């Protein structure tokens, strides 16, 4: 993004960070990648928070208040291209307009970089964890603090 974004601006390019909880089904500990619940909205929300890398000091800003969490990343271009591809395929029965808006918050450290992606239907969540998002090097989640994986060794 060349100029400083203004609140409410559409975000169409730039690298984005997203936290990854250290829990089973949010992080895939075998594949070392975000898992099925990593991009599911919080209760009462229709979208998810992400953070513009250009406005942060580094990935640590995203998880400074979330001990144990990891960080994943994807570009706005990658994400929006994937949404377009999903919409173009008729057999997906998916025609929602998914957008990324710059919505800074007063939250310390990372609030100034806050963006919101909405809506976040299951097919888009699946695209994010299957194809779009990758873990940020050096920021894996800590061992699982909650959940259960019958395949995993103790």
């Amino acid at each position, binding site marked *: 993004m060349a100029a400083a974004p203004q609140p409410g601006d559409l975000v169409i390019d730039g690298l984005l960070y997203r936290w990854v909880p250290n829990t*089973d089904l949010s992080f895939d500990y075998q594949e070392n990648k975000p898992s099925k*619940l990593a991009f*599911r909205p919080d209760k009462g929300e229709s979208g998810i928070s992400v953070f513009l890398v250009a406005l942060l000091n580094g990935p640590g800003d995203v998880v400074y208040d*979330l001990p*144990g969490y990891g960080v994943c990343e994807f570009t706005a271009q990658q994400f929006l291209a994937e949404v377009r591809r999903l919409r173009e395929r008729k057999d997906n*029965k998916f025609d929602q307009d998914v957008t990324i808006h710059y919505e800074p918050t007063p939250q310390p450290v990372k609030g100034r970089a806050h963006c919101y992606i909405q809506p976040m239907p299951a097919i888009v969540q699946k695209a994010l964890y299957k194809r779009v998002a990758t873990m940020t090097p050096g920021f894996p989640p800590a061992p699982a603090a*909650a959940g*259960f994986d019958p395949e995993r060794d103790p």
Partner: protein
Amino acid sequence: MGNRLPADDPALGAALMRLMNALKRGAEAFRDEWNSAADKRVQLGMADLYDKAALAIDQMRKGMAPRFVMDKGAIQAATDFISMLRTHHMRVPKIGPSPDGGVGMSWVFGTREGRPFEIDAVVLDWNTIEYREGFADADGFTVDTILRSTKELQQRLLEALSQNAQPASDRQREQ
């Protein structure tokens, strides 16, 4: 972990292998083999998985991960569902807390055509369970619906199991 059998106990290993082979023949064969398992340690070893799954769900009540506030109804319904799985000798899912307070569950199975098939459920309370199933490599889902009870979830799971002969993880172990 409880489902792992000691490598130096061939009798136990053979018993588990018979159980896994029965699973490939279908739910009825699995039940017969289970009920006649000469070595009860096989049953005990697998039953331990259900206990661990139930314990993991109970621990979510304590809100051990930041930002997660678990719904009490979801915890109770998910625990009840694990009891159902135990009763019907059904496969224990991967389990995790959902950011909206529910309990997520996920199964992956192999299919005859070789494409992994996924079943995902998020138990939000006693009568709201998000249910999705579909091929792992597909964009979307073949089923995407809301179920109204854990009993309905169990029935859906049984239907999906009957169409998928063998868990993917077991197939990988054989290769």
